[in-house]
């Protein structure tokens, strides 16, 4: 077990710096007004990169037992199931129910 990895200031500040740059980048891309599907795709790719940086380095998953990483991935797997199965209904309705 390596549950007690001590992060150096260099790592922590480097990750925070990368998060800062990615935040500025995603706001910058927003003002470029990319054509329809690309705006959300780029925004989500940047968000996933930022979230991964936080999980891997700030939450120590890189140095931690792999079991904890598996728990996190399982959460996203089940979230994917929830969204996937829901969309199988909501995307294929002939008409949106008016009260919705």
């Amino acid at each position, binding site marked *: 077990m390596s549950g007690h990895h001590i992060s150096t200031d260099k790592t922590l500040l480097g990750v925070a710096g990368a998060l800062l740059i990615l935040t500025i980048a995603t706001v910058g891309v927003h003002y470029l007004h990319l054509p329809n599907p690309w*705006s959300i795709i780029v925004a989500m790719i940047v968000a996933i990169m930022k979230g991964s940086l936080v999980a891997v380095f700030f939450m120590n998953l890189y140095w931690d037992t792999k079991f904890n990483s598996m728990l996190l991935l399982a959460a996203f797997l089940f979230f994917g199931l*929830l969204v996937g199965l829901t969309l199988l209904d*909501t995307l294929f309705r002939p008409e949106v129910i008016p009260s919705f």
Partner: protein
Amino acid sequence: MANHSTTSSHSRFQQHHFVDAEQQFDAAKMGMWVFLVTEILMFGGLFAAYIVYRLWYPELFVLASEELNTLWGGVNTLVLIGSSLTVAMAIKSAQLNQKRNIAINLGITLALAAIFMVIKYFEYTHKFHLGIFPGEFYTFEGIDHPKANVFFSLYYLMTGLHGIHVTIGMGLMIWLLVRSTKGHFGEEYYTPIEMTGLYWHLVDIIWIFLFPLFYLID
């Protein structure tokens, strides 16, 4: 490992049903990750609702997002990233036994969390002033879409649940600050800071997704 329990040097926070402090720490951390899974799935229900409505009414999300202030959303993103950094610094300080730095970093984290909530307060009250309330209480007429209230119901539910988490996090930071001034934490024992840190980072990650999904829609 042998005869570890006979030494009197172990932390006073070690509980007798664990082999050693290491096992206690790893067990606590795994339990915390299981809790974070349930948190992700709780927010997951709201994210699923968001996806369903965004696919039903894509034009609504473009129109309604104009009412959200990208500048303040961006500032809040940076505030939370900064607070994630300081909470990681607090853990590092504990590991290096720098007891004063634990309290300093926790204090900065608490202050950044408070700044986040103050900005959120001004964002909310500005919308309330315009009549932008969730659901049937919505009276704003500036958005030309019959389902405009749906966007703001999602906005208030998701940022509201997130805000509740930030508020709980502030309570945890105060608790840690009190304990750190009593000298409870150091290289031997810092489990509560590590667990609160994991919780705080998850709250940060959720905001990292909420920000582009609400504020950055063309």
